């Protein structure tokens, strides 16, 4: 599997919010998209799954999945790819769920749409919930009956249960405490190794990026200002904005660092 983005632009009226020359995601690779708030990270991911245009944006350029062009593909075909080969964890999990359905119903709908039988869907949902450290009983709840971090983990569980090849994860751990976050990062690493899942990991948390990702692309005002191996970029950033970002990471002071 390869995902190739070339000369991608996303615009609202005359305002260009994404302008990416090139970005690739290879088999079993984890690439981070970090950078300024409002720099176009979410729009980039939404463009990949064909949802940027449904929000009123104009998308141009090329996004290829194993050579097949996704831009301009009819929504009916994109729907099969979304949740099939590519799945996405949205930045605000609570509002991305339909509030009138129980979590279990949402799982069943998504899994059956992509070919699972009813019994299979139930088992896979329970298994995915345990995978993100949630009791399967939470499948009986409505979205608003979950805590912020529980909703975020349900979104991860749902994406994983779909067994996609490419996962677009938009701030998937921002609402998690560090112990649970650690478990989720472990899970993502396992999926990459065992299932060869490729992950585009959008995150503000540079420490998490350092722990999880192979490469990192730093965005600012729609453009990628720096890209490279995560360890290298974070240790010796060459772009001034990346440097500023790294310098701004709040750290536990030495007295508390143990």
């Amino acid at each position, binding site marked *: 599997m390869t995902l190739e983005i070339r000369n991608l632009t996303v615009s609202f009226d005359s305002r260009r919010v994404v302008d990416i020359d090139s970005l690739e995601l290879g088999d079993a690779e984890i690439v981070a998209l970090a950078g300024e708030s409002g720099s176009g990270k979410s729009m980039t991911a939404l463009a990949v799954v064909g949802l940027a245009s449904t929000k009123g944006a104009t998308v141009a350029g090329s996004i290829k999945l194993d050579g097949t062009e996704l831009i301009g593909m009819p929504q009916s075909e994109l729907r099969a790819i979304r949740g099939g080969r590519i799945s996405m964890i949205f930045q605000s999990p609570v509002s991305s769920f339909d509030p009138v359905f129980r979590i279990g119903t949402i799982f069943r709908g998504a899994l059956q749409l992509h070919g699972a039988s009813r019994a299979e869907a139930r088992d896979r949902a329970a298994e995915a919930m345990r995978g993100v450290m949630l009791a399967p009983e939470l499948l009986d709840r409505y979205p608003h009956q979950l805590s912020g971090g529980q909703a975020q983990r349900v979104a991860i569980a749902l994406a994983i249960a779909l067994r996609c090849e490419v996962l677009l994860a938009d701030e998937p751990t921002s*609402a998690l405490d560090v112990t649970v976050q650690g478990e989720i990062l472990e899970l993502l690493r396992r999926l990459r190794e065992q299932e060869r899942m490729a992950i585009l990991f959008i995150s503000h948390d540079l420490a998490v990026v*350092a722990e999880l990702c192979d490469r990192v692309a730093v965005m600012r005002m729609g453009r990628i200002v720096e890209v490279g191996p995560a360890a290298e970029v974070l240790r010796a950033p060459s772009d001034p904005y990346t440097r500023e970002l790294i310098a701004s990471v709040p750290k536990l002071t030495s007295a508390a660092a143990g």
Partner: protein
Amino acid sequence: MLEVRALHVVFESVHAVDGVSLTLPAGPFGLGIVGESGSGKTTIARAVMRLIPLAGGSVLLDGHDVFRLRGGALRAYRRAVQIVFQDADSTLDPRMRVGPAIREALRVHRVVSRDEFGHRVDELLEEVGLESATSSRFPHELSGGQRQRVAIARALAVEPRTLILDEPTSALDVTVQARILRLIAELREKRQLAYFLISHNLAVVQQLCEEAAVLYLGQVIEQGPTGQLLSSPAHPYTRALRSAVPEIDIADRRARVVVPGIVPDPAHPPAGCRFNPRCPFVVQRCREETPLLRRLWAEHSVACHRAEELNPVLVSHGGRGQDALGQTPDNLGSIF
């Protein structure tokens, strides 16, 4: 002073908050609330805002029962205590542009005169790092972090004395986060602001809060001065939490203490110590007897039967001193 006394919140069969007491003194003061996902932090915040009914306990502002306030007193409370919700999306009115939404807050609480509204809106947006053009946008036309900042600006608009911040910077890049943290630090001195800061980011809590409380399954399991709590965590769960903080610098990374198992559903909490099914130090007593929150020394309280035994250095040195810092949490963590 804002007090939460023996608070209980129950959703159908879920006992989400089970006897929590917290005191937020008059500002400038920050009380951090940390804890596992689902432990009841947001529920406490919603209870303080009177958004959900209590199953027991009370919330007091300067000694007055908040749930008994009516009319003018209630309006005054709504202005004095503002909240920034964890999920900005579900709290901003989707049909209202940003500018009018903030103006509305200024108008309802008569913060400034009408002819100053426009100017004040621009000022508030600038304080949170947004261009004044943001005024004319709808919430769905903003990025996640931009929406979160609009929610912060709106809460600050009415110049509250007390703020409840539920993960206020979780959707922000670190430079914008630093700006918001500076803003809060500034306001706390300028306006004698007091706040509850709910956050998963321990470094942020350390920066802004003199005190912190750790929640687990609806109960406070440890509380104390932030510096001390983080340098010498006494409860096994706090220690695991402390050890799991990811670091950019590989050299700074510590061995993560793994807490095995799924957090039990608060609908069926385990008997005795609620952490016992996952605690590496569990003994028979932990399964039978609930440990109460008790003073370990001075201001530092913990709910664990074995606190002294597991933290000998902490107790003998009164929690300070080099030895205590050297011994915890990493060295003790390796026992896990």
